[in-house]
């Protein structure tokens, strides 16, 4: 039966994450963006929320089940706090979720327990490639099977935490299908490039990586011979990023709304003019709509159903929505929105990234 109620557990989780977002992430956000660095203790404080372990079954040391819907709830809150921090904190999910969904028993047993410890362990995945006609279903990075091993070649970009990650899950074309390969740190043939410079998510360290005849044992192919259903994994990513887009948009909308109520022009708060008020109303409507779309897709994924259409629509709608809303946030503040004293310009820079961030988060 149709319902929009969160479970009690979900409510508690959301409250805890929101508190962290408000007290920790928001405070660190601006400095982190300017300096390009998240404060040291921020990730450990976030890790204590137990988000990743809560997706991992007890058998592997965790204390829960993977749920895209619950993930969407906390991803929104984290991104509302700060997107760089959210992407950083959830980077291990880029390995963990695919493992949970498709890992062989051995892969799960070997890799999952380390993510159930008290300490944040950096791990990541590499999907994006440096060309305009990037197509996740037709990758240029290739994996060739040679006897008991795979040889990978190609170039990836926007790989979060690549320099520190213990493992990078590299997506590559394997005979016409996109498959995933677990590449441990320091594997010969894997070169981590310079840290990238981007318009937004400046506090998140991302890197290009190069694979030159990077050879790994065949058992490092995620899911073994069966491999993965890449489309389904990508759907998880669309949901995660969609939820984050909602979080950012909400942040900008809330800030603009409060500003518009305080700021006076021509003798009245600017919010009392329809041009501004309607802009805010449209923001509110599309943010709510986007969130519900994220929920529906996540709900379907959690039931094991095909949610490809839903996820594609989530991506289309949220990419556009977050840009419109964060642009509107700057616009409502006018000249003040253009100054780096207010956070709206930061959300605006981050907002434009979502159309590009394909595969950079997963819940």
């Amino acid at each position: 039966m149709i319902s929009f109620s969160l479970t009690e557990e979900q409510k508690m989780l959301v409250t805890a994450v929101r508190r962290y977002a408000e007290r920790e992430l928001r405070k660190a956000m601006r400095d982190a963006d300017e300096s390009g660095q998240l404060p040291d203790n921020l990730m450990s404080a976030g890790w204590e929320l137990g988000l990743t372990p809560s997706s991992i079954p007890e058998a592997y040391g965790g204390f829960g089940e993977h749920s895209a819907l619950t993930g969407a709830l906390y991803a929104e809150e984290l991104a509302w706090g700060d997107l760089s921090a959210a992407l950083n904190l959830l980077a291990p999910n880029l390995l963990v979720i695919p493992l949970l969904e498709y890992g062989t028993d051995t892969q799960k047993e070997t890799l999952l327990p380390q993510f159930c410890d008290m300490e944040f362990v950096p791990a990541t995945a590499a999907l994006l490639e440096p060309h305009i006609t990037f197509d996740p279903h037709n990758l240029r990075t290739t994996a060739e099977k040679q006897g008991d091993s795979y040889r990978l070649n190609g170039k990836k970009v926007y790989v979060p935490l690549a320099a520190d990650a213990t493992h990078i899950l590299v997506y590559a074309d394997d005979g016409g299908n996109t498959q995933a390969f677990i590449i441990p740190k320091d594997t010969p043939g894997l070169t981590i490039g310079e840290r990238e410079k981007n318009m937004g998510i400046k506090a998140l360290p991302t890197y290009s990586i190069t694979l030159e005849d990077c050879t790994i044992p065949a058992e490092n192919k995620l899911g073994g011979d069966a491999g993965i259903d890449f489309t389904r994994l990508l759907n998880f990513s669309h949901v995660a990023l969609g939820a984050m887009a909602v979080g950012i948009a909400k942040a900008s909308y809330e800030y603009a709304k409060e500003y518009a109520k305080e700021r006076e022009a021509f003798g009245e708060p600017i919010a009392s003019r329809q041009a501004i008020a309607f802009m805010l109303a449209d923001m509110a409507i599309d943010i709510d709509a986007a969130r519900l779309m994220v929920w529906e897709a996540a709900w379907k994924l959690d039931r094991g159903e095909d949610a490809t259409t839903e996820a594609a629509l989530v991506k289309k709608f949220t990419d556009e929505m977050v840009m419109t809303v964060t642009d509107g946030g700057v616009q409502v503040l006018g000249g003040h929105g253009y100054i780096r004293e207010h956070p709206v310009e930061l959300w605006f820079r981050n907002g434009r990234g979502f159309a590009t961030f394909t595969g950079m988060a997963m819940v």
Partner: protein
Amino acid sequence: MIDFSLSDKIKQQNMQLKMIAEGLMRPVSREMDEKEHEKPWDFINATWQFTSMQTARMLRKLDKQQAGETAEKNGKAPAEYYMGLMYMIEMLSWGDAGIYLCLPMSALAGSAIEAVGTVEQKKRFLSRFAEGEPKWGGMAITEPHAGSDTSAIRTTARLDPETNEWVLNGEKIFVTSGLMAAEKSDGILVVWATIDPGAGRRGIKSFVVEANTPGMKVTKVEHKLGIRASDTAAIVFEDCRIPYDNILGDPTVKTTNKTKGFKGVMKTFDASRPLVAASALGIARAALEFTKDALKKEGIDIRYTAPRHRRTAIENDVMEMEAQYKAAWLLTLRSAWMMDEKLPNTLEASMAKAKAGKAVTFITQKAVELLGTLGYSRERLVEKWMRDAKINDIFEGTGQINTLIVARRILGYNRTQLK
């Protein structure tokens, strides 16, 4: 727990209604559009069986309540009451939005009476909807000089102390099913009028006028862009006398700012806006399905996962239509669910209505565009759906009015702070 699965009850209802839509609505869609002001009698007679039974059931329940046989509170709705209603309206509008509006029932008049009428009034005015020939109810609010501005109503209701009757004078327009309710069946109209022209919003009351009451006259049935199967009437009241007891709710002019009567009326919008949104989305779904089918016949399947440099412009357009549909639909679903959960939903209902009105106009207009000569032709129904659709961005509060309500709610502003 967040859940998007349909209950068996609604699934079954959907199946039944789809048969009505396909069997009794779609086949006469074009005819009813071309022959404006004729009525889809097969549909009316078939659905009257259903609506009259429902009214009878409601009245029986009322009797039981009076007799103290049931502990159920007055007006308590069963589980998924609005959800079921919403799905019903969506499916019937998918069939034909103009014909759906011909559904023989007390409609908005009934809702108003159910919401604020006394038990005696409910029996007196609604029992006719449980028996005999099909009948209609209508709501007369809008006047020629004022659209969304209900506080500017000029129709007067003067109490004649000698006869203890209300005497109505004024003119109403845009009365949905007005002709059927006022003259062509033994129906009823709920008429908004002021009992104190100087009191503004506070003087406005609603009154039940029975069909063919002397002094009430349908002066015009509008020729419209769309929803032509539904009559939209202009009605004039000239010394139209009705019994004192036909007033709904409190007959006094409140002097406090708490304009309870008026607020009560506005409250009905919280219930009706999700339903109007659902009607809009029924049309949108029809257009979307038709478009996708037509494209499929030409070998065009929508590749949802194709990147922008492979996806064609037409595929991209269809995805945008679907995304807007989905967004509006989920907002509507939520606002109906909140009604059932008895959660305050003024904000969410207006969100749904504003978004659905926009979505359906966009989707149907785009459908006509994408389908080219096929879309523009009156040999198919798409162009009709586009014309029908537009009413949804207009009635039950235009898109602008609903956006204004959303804006006021999110800002915490009243109507003076945000005009």
